[in-house]
């Protein structure tokens, strides 16, 4: 089976399964599941965007939550000043986080290894403290989002409508992501991850391609942040905390780095485990830790690699 047709099948089946969540939740009279799965999909979008640079581009960005935070504040701050238009808010989220990624990337991509990790982490922490400093917008307590983004007739206060908007964005990103990683552009960033000296020797200057990928991933992360602010109807600097960056990175590693659908699986499984385990015990992280370590040690290509047996980085 070709990669393309495998992807189409996974996308179709997975998309359909996710689309059935609201009616099933309604039938079971468990509206909570709509909320939970919507949250999973929002984090899946963030994880897919991180995987583009982490899994395919080999850039271990440990500050991806920064874009989540920028996206959330791009919704919260205009809303605070009475601008509720969703196109303005989400557009601002995409632009501002893309711009931040441009600056962070232009500096960090010149380094590699531990330095890259530390610089991206440092930028995210800087933004985290900037958020704490924004007294007008609640400082470290954050602030309520008084109303969700307005999109004319599309009413996000309806849980199912909001759910399908998130699902549509996720599917769109997966389709587009699949095209991008196989395109000329995708081949360059994957080649640079695979063997950068070789990529340079055959004539590629990887820097600008990696930077472009970094900006794309940042913008996607920003949109995820805008969705998250609408999801929680609350935003705090904690959106940008380094533990949040680590959580998104875990989703990618758990699901499978360098696979298209792995981060989605990772986001769903991690949040599900969190949900189930935290109901059982207050010390759920003690149980979650070993599970994560086991997956990292024994499933090099993550859960999706185990499920799909994806032999290459193409799946």
């Amino acid at each position, binding site marked *: 089976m070709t990669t*393309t047709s495998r992807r189409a099948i996974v996308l179709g089946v997975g998309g359909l399964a996710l689309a059935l969540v609201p009616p099933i939740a309604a039938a079971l009279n468990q509206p909570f599941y709509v909320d939970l799965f919507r949250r999973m999909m929002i984090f899946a979008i963030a994880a897919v965007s991180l995987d583009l640079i982490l899994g395919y581009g080999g850039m271990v960005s440990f500050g991806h939550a920064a874009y989540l935070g920028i996206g959330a504040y791009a919704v919260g701050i205009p809303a605070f000043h009475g601008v509720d238009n969703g196109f303005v808010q989400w557009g601002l989220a995409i632009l501002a986080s893309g711009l931040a990624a441009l600056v962070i990337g232009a500096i960090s991509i010149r380094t590699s290894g531990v330095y890259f990790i530390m610089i991206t982490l440092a930028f995210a922490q800087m933004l985290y403290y900037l958020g704490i400093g924004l007294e007008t917008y609640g400082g470290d307590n954050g602030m309520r989002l008084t109303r969700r983004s307005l999109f004319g007739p599309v009413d996000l206060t309806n849980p199912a409508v909001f759910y399908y908007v998130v699902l549509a964005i996720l599917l769109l990103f997966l389709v587009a992501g699949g*095209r*991008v990683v*196989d*395109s*000329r*552009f*995708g*081949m*360059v960033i*994957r*080649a640079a991850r*695979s*063997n950068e*000296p*070789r*990529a*340079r*020797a*055959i*004539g*590629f*200057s990887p820097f600008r*391609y990696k930077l*472009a990928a970094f900006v794309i991933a940042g913008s996607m992360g920003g949109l995820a942040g805008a969705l998250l602010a609408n999801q929680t109807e609350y935003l705090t600097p904690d959106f940008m905390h380094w533990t949040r960056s680590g959580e998104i990175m875990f989703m990618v590693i758990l699901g499978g780095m360098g696979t298209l659908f792995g981060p989605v699986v990772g986001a769903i499984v991690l949040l599900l485990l969190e949900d189930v385990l935290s109901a059982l015990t207050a010390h759920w992280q003690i149980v979650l830790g070993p599970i994560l370590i086991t997956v990292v040690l024994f499933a090099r290509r993550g859960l999706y690699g185990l499920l799909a047996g994806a032999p*290459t*980085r193409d799946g």
Partner: protein
Amino acid sequence: MAEPLLAIRGLRKRFGGLLATDQVDLDVSEGETYAVIGPNGAGKTTLIGQLAGDLRPDDGAIRFAGRDVTRLDAPLRSRLGLARSFQITSIFPDFSALANVALAVQAHTGGSFRFWRPAAGEPSLTRPARAVLESVGLGGRADVLAANLAHGEQRQLEIAMALATKPRLLLLDEPVAGMGLEESQRMVRFLGTLKGHVTIVLVEHDMDAVFTLADRISVMVYGRIIATGTAEEVRGNEEVRRAYLGEDAPPPC
């Protein structure tokens, strides 16, 4: 007389106390196969590194195809027609052999800010890539993951990637290193077929390979070129015998 394709003047590179390249002058004409030999640690790989653009010389100039390329980085030199192989095999292990070569073609045909069309579906990339794989004898291995190729095949793949960039000058850093006798003979025969079509500068330990392929040879010792000439002239040179081929030097392997 026409300007040589590659002209090196007064090249110098120092690593701490070690003068790895010491006032090297060297001319390579179009179509020539030129070998640099010398004992281990003579500075041959450092020289290749400076020619390819990975290392900045401390002093001196490198002219290639009528241009001063001393300050250009490796990707720019590649796009001017300077291709290289590495001493330690350097390929994209998690791509198929075909994709490895197609990448090299891609790097030299237009920009890569194209986000939608699958690169593997572009005949303008895969067709020339297949032809080059065919020419190095890897035609039947196109879809094999590069990591799963035999060592000798990986070296061939590296040459294929270099050739796919349609180079004017091929820099080969020990192309038969680590190969068995039969494999290395096959590689030497293949490189022989390139003679005249593309200018080659090679650094090599294997004397059989060098004396079979090279039109001219320079002998490098401690970063300095101590002799240049045809195979016969170099073999007969007294200083070379003493410094390299002679009794106190390691025998050429």
